[in-house]
């Protein structure tokens, strides 16, 4: 029987937890990852929901996974393959469509057909956003310094940040200041006149937030999604072979090769505290594991309000974590299909099926979808980001059959009246009816559908509130405020207890940055 004594215990075998453990093992530490479920992956899992039909159950595209993690953990050798997801098509109510292809000339021709002015603005906008993302990117790799602190480390960090800000041009600084405060609608209206273009772009600014495109702060989320684009040459954007579970399978394989032990069906009950330090964990089955350090890769609420008795934290910290906004706003409908849906706007099998299909005809549409959510209802006409994974990786469905992944917003965690089977069915029906408007033959092809609400994300993946980023990417929940002021450096008020997941800086999106940086900080503190 394995010894229950480790150098480090990581709670949660999502990508961040396993990445952190892998880095710790690389540094020679004996690390174990404890996973509540019977499978690894967290919210990055592939499951065969219907026999023969495999789904990236929650997270479904890869764009932000840090290139240095891919290199350091040799993920390609462990099976990581990121397949192209080359386009986005927005079907329109008038039967036409707006496409963004993966070719500059084709995209320009396409936008030009709707608006010559926007076709040119689009080029410039893309460059400006890429430059802003490039400018802000070094901050992502930085352990956030606390501006209120006079410690040497924080002062050094602030100095570095100041020097970096100084190195940017005035234009870049203004741009960034605007981007972090503006609404995505305001930003996009400065650039474009085409409704579907604005709607589709704005949609990426509301993903995972409980905000609408007209809410201030959403422009930053839009930028967050642009980060992946600057690694374009590295090709980090796409659909993982075997679904998003393919990413965590590669990470798990790499971690195991480095000596990490991964235990599944090992739910953590409590972090054991001895002498004011985290000293191990007690499992739900009664087993106890001891270690020098414990790191949680669960969400902030679970990590600080459930695993650890609150007496070990200052009240202020507990309050900050309580106030941390984790309200889920997105749902997912995974559909097994006996054939390929035919979209009226681009009939037949074509490039549309190999990319994303965005139901976002205008900012107005997306904002109205939010209006429903604001008053506690799921959107009657939701924003959707649809992909057909089986067109990208044929192993996702039986030959000739397909799987369709529909990311849907808004689906409030605390929907009025609560989520019961009737409400879930109605939500699923809304999604099907929405797709049916653009692909009328879909209904007859449905072999099965899985409806996921934020409640299900919470129940299955264990993310409190069911927010896909473990907490919204709002300005007041970012950088040195994520997850709580003074505790954004992956340490916590409890000595020996660390925190490295999407609820920490720099946020979610299957990035892995939090897990990696947390491991680095653990190693810096190692004595």
């Amino acid at each position: 029987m394995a010894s229950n004594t480790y150098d480090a215990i990581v709670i949660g075998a999502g990508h961040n937890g396993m990445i952190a453990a892998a880095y710790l093992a690389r540094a020679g530490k004996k690390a174990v990852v404890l996973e509540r479920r019977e499978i690894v992956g967290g919210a990055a899992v592939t499951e065969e929901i219907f026999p023969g039909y495999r789904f990236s159950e929650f997270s479904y595209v890869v764009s932000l996974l840090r290139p240095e993690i891919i290199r350091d953990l040799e993920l390609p050798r462990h099976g990581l393959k990121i397949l192209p997801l080359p386009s986005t098509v927005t079907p329109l109510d008038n039967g036409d469509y707006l496409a963004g292809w993966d070719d500059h000339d084709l995209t320009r021709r396409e936008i030009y057909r709707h608006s010559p002015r926007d076709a040119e603005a689009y080029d410039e906008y893309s460059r400006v956003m890429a430059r802003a993302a490039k400018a802000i990117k070094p901050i992502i790799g930085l352990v956030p310094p606390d501006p209120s602190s006079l410690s040497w480390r924080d002062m050094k960090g602030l100095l570095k940040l100041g020097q970096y800000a100084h190195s940017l041009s005035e234009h870049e600084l203004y741009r960034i200041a605007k981007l972090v405060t503006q609404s995505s609608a305001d930003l996009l209206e400065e650039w474009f006149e085409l409704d579907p273009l604005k709607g589709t772009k704005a949609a990426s600014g509301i993903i995972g937030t409980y905000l609408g495109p007209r809410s201030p702060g959403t422009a930053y989320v839009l930028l967050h999604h642009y980060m992946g684009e600057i690694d374009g040459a590295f090709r980090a954007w796409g659909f993982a072979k075997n679904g998003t579970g393919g990413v965590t399978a590669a990470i798990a394989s790499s971690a195991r090769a480095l000596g990490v032990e991964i235990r599944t069906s090992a739910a953590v009950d409590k972090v054991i505290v001895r002498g004011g330090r985290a000293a191990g964990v007690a499992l739900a089955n009664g087993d106890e594991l001891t270690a020098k350090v414990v790191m949680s890769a669960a969400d902030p609420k679970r990590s600080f309000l459930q695993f650890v008795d609150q007496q070990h934290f200052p009240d202020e910290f507990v309050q900050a974590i309580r106030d941390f906004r984790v309200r889920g706003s997105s749902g997912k409908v995974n559909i097994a299909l006996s054939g390929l849906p035919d979209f009226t706007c681009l009939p037949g099998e074509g490039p549309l099926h190999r990319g994303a299909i965005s139901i976002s005809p205008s900012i107005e549409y997306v904002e109205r979808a939010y209006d429903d959510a604001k008053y506690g209802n799921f959107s009657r006409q939701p924003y959707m980001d649809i992909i057909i994974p089986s067109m990208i990786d044929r192993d996702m469905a039986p030959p000739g059959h397909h799987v369709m992944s529909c990311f849907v917003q808004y689906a409030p965690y605390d929907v009025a009246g609560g989520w019961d089977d009737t409400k879930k069915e109605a939500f699923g029906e809304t999604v099907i009816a929405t797709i049916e408007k653009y692909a009328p033959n879909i209904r007859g092809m449905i072999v099965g559908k899985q409806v996921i609400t934020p409640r299900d994300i919470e129940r299955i993946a264990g993310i409190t509130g069911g927010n896909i980023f473990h907490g919204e990417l709002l300005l007041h929940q970012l950088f040195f405020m994520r997850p709580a002021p003074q505790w954004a450096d992956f340490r916590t008020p409890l000595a020996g207890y660390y925190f490295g997941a999407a609820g920490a800086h720099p946020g979610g999106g299957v990035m892995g940055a939090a897990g990696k940086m947390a491991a680095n900080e653990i190693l810096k503190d190692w004595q």
Partner: protein
Amino acid sequence: MPELSTVHHPLYQLRRTPFHARTSQLCLPHNWRRWGGCIAVGSYDLGLDREYWAIRNHAALIDISPLIKYEIGGPDAARLLHRLTPRDIHRMQVGQVYYTGWCDDDGKLLDDGTVTRIGEKSFRLTAAEPQYRWLSMNAVGMQVQVTELTEQMAALSLQGPKSRTILNLACEQPVDSLKYFRMAFNRIAGKAVSVSRTGYTGDLGYEIWMDAADALVIWDALMAAGHDYGITPTGILAMDMARVEAGLFMLDVDYTSASHAWIAGQRSSPYEMGLGWTVNLDKQGYFVGRRALEREHREGSSWKMVGLEIDWEGLEREYAAVGMPPQIPASAVRGSIPIYTGPRQVGYASTSTWSPVLKKYIALVHLQQPFHAPGTRVEIEVTVEHHRRKSPATVVALPFYDPEWKKK
């Protein structure tokens, strides 16, 4: 359930020019290139020799329809172009053509093209990249109408010593009196055209602008008129060799538009690109980039694009060392090659080509001050049998090739 059949969507492909029905029939090697979102013939033959020599000895017929074209009209049309470009547009006569670049506020080139004064209040502007947004931004408060003509207007370039003879046969009005960088209206096969004495080869040549609907009729008329004078459909690869000989540069190859640049160092000013002659600092009023260009004019540029002739003896020596005669690429090379003075890199070549008419290996090079003075001896990197060597070369003024009949 029946399988969906794969459908080829007409919009999911590059545009075809109005001459596609002819050019696609003639493009023997299926050598297509991209140009302005269109497919353009790279070469019609398997090699470039015949097309290149058509430019220099007969007449080459080149489809230049992918050029971006605008019509700028209205009471403030001249004002807009005067503000946009560093040239004195108010002094331009009707029928005159100016070549010019245009800059951003920092005096760095955004694009380059020709401005033709069609009438007192109407101009045609050509560009490599779309400029509608930039034009609109500069036209605020002006009474001016900007119309893009790119797809409605087809264009052919007829370049080479026989081009005038052929046009005289094909056109209703003779073109003998049409001077260099002038434009006149004419008719070919009964169809209205405008003919400008311009081109991208540095030879005698004309560009013919027409309604896209008339494209094929005019192509056929020119081919028929030119048959006995060696008219040769020519692709953009042969033109690429000729334009280097003529010292003409290309966006995205020899310079990066300031609006595309990732970093400041990627931008170029008109002075740096050898377009100082187009910058008229004496002209009245403001134009975009004026202050930055005045400063650069005063303080001097840190580098300049000039010509480079590579010593044949040096190439021979490097190749002889491995037992081979010098090897020459079959077309112009678009790729950065370092230029040295001793161990120090002082610049780079952006396009290099063998010049069949000069029998020299030449390059457009970007050299730091003071190494761009004509006569300066430098060394260019050559890769000889997978090994990097240096070969001596001499800085020369542009153009490399300037036949007397070009402007006559």
